[in-house]
């Protein structure tokens, strides 16, 4: 598909520079629009066919049409016309004006839908990449992501994992450094007026998953990959401070990233 789209692009470019071949360009674009309908149909009906046998013949036709086009063979099953008739036919009784518009601009509409389809496909792939690499489809704002990874590999909704404060401390309940840091943290909180959201990670999978989301900045700022405790995070600036630190260090971290 990529190869064909590439070829189409090259073709169009070559044709554009040749003014006298304008009609060829027009026909080519028309041809592309027809392929486009088949591509959309292949994705849409392919998905629907998983759940309903009713869509399987259409999915098969769409796949066959795309395959024929990809292999530069003619596709004469008129799938685009059938889809167009299906859409326009449904609109015809309900809204004749809309039906007329869709009927007239069907190829352009399907072209727009294809661009949207590829854009959303690219965005989904990017999100999936983030999901597998960083544990969230949007590492910069995990709360906007539907899924995030738990330590046992299952997924959960982020509503249980949202950090509401500006600063967070990831700690382990039995971690001696964490226990030792408690008075220092309390002092810095009282002096600066900020509050750390304290998230226990040794026994709480949701918190542990949240920490994993911040792994990039922990790795960057602390040079440690994993779950060091205690770890202090600035949600706003996405910076981290790790381990048993002095009051001055913690205070400076807070004031700098407030």
């Amino acid at each position, binding site marked *: 598909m990529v190869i064909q789209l590439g070829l189409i692009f090259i073709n169009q470019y070559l044709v554009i520079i040749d003014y006298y071949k304008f009609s060829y360009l027009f026909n080519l674009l028309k041809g592309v629009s027809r392929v486009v309908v088949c591509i959309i149909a292949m994705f849409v009906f392919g998905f629907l066919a998983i759940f309903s046998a009713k869509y399987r013949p259409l999915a098969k036709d769409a796949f066959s049409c795309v395959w024929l086009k990809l292999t530069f063979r003619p596709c004469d099953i008129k799938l685009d*016309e059938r889809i*167009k*008739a299906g859409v*326009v036919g*449904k609109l*015809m*009784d309900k809204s*004749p004006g809309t*039906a*007329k518009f869709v009927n007239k601009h069907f190829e352009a509409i399907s072209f727009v839908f294809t661009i949207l389809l590829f854009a959303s496909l690219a965005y989904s792939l990017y999100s999936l990449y983030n999901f597998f690499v960083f544990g969230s489809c949007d590492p910069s704002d995990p709360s906007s992501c539907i899924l995030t990874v738990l330590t046992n590999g299952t997924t959960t909704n982020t509503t249980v994992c949202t950090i509401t404060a500006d600063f967070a401390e990831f700690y382990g309940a039995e971690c001696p450094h964490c226990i030792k840091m408690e008075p220092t943290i309390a002092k810095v909180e009282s002096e600066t007026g900020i509050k750390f959201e304290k998230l226990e990670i040794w026994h709480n999978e949701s918190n542990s998953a949240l920490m994993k989301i911040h792994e990039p900045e922990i790795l960057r700022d602390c040079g440690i990959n994993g779950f060091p405790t205690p770890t202090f995070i600035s949600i706003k600036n996405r910076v981290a401070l790790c381990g048993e630190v002095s009051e001055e260090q913690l205070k400076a971290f807070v004031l700098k990233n407030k």
Partner: protein
Amino acid sequence: MIEMDGKDIKKDFPIFSKRPELTYFDNACTTLKPKQVIDAVVSYYSDYSACSGRSGHKMAKEVDLKFEESRAKVAKFVGANADELVWTKNTTEGINIVANSFDFSKRKKVVMTNLEHHSAILPFQKLSESGRVTLEFVSAGSDGTISDEQWKKAIDSETALVVVHHSNNSIGTRSNLKEIVKLAHEKGALALVDGAQGVPHCEVNFKRENYDFLAFSAHKMLGPTGIGGLVVKKDLLQKMPPFIVGGGTIQDVKLDYTEYLKTNHKFEPGIQHYSGAIGFGAAVDYLSKLGMKNVEAYEHKLADKMNETLNSVPGVEIYGPEFSDKHGALFSFNIKGAKPHEVALLLDKPGIAVRSGVFCAQPAMEAMGQKDGAVRASLYIYNTEQEIEFFGEKLGKIAQLYR
């Protein structure tokens, strides 16, 4: 004459209870089947599914009886004798038999119109490619008409065969067969009538109308698919050699020589489509009970209404000559600015089945100036005026899309 009503006839067609939304206007392609025909076909398979003309057991004799009984019914329906009727697969096979068994050794010229179905053109075109015949076309212009003068000019003393449709499958007109057959005979030529679109819709009498060959299909007249008839004048039939040979066509077989039957059976090699032939007999019974004059009158009423409806939709262009009493209930049209396939698909949404394309008659549609084809609405006995009104309403909405 009885007053027919498509609504009552519909009750005999099980398909309408399964598809109540169906408005079937694709009858020129194939018609729907009444319960009587379906029962006859099923009865063969469930009650006596043996072969005919071979075995001597009781069940085989029952098939013999029903098979030949059907032959007699169908032959009588078209005004011929049973021994003049050859069972074929369809009209196409009937025409191919004539093309390949006809003696073109003395005269080679075949005259036909440019409005013929591919099934009539192709067998002779193939012969002309090998030099066995020379083809001459009598051409209709964009109005779809052919004058008697054109026929007179084309049919001459060199003409062996005139091939002509009874009723046209792309524009619904009827040929002036009386004149054409007379002209052919005057010049010593024979006439092959393609009755595919004629026999189902009006009274056709092979003997009275003096045709030499008549080919038609069962499925276009309520019968099963895969069965048709070719009627050949008895003296011609005896002289013509068989086209496809095999079991059931022979008198005597030696390793180096075979003597074929002289009867119609010589054109029916191998096991036949018994259920089809028996179903065809039932279809003919059904139509005979209605009366072909009544069928014709009812169809004319529908055609009148369809003509009025199509003309009332702005942007619709009907092909063929002006509507007249001789027009069948078949109309080809386009909506200005719309592709025929699109219109057919849009009509299909509310359940209206029509055909689009060139209807296996590309030269005819090209003569009409419609090389991309048209939409065809063809009616039959179970259609109603209400259906035509519904069709008109939907067509009007479709036409609006292209204004």
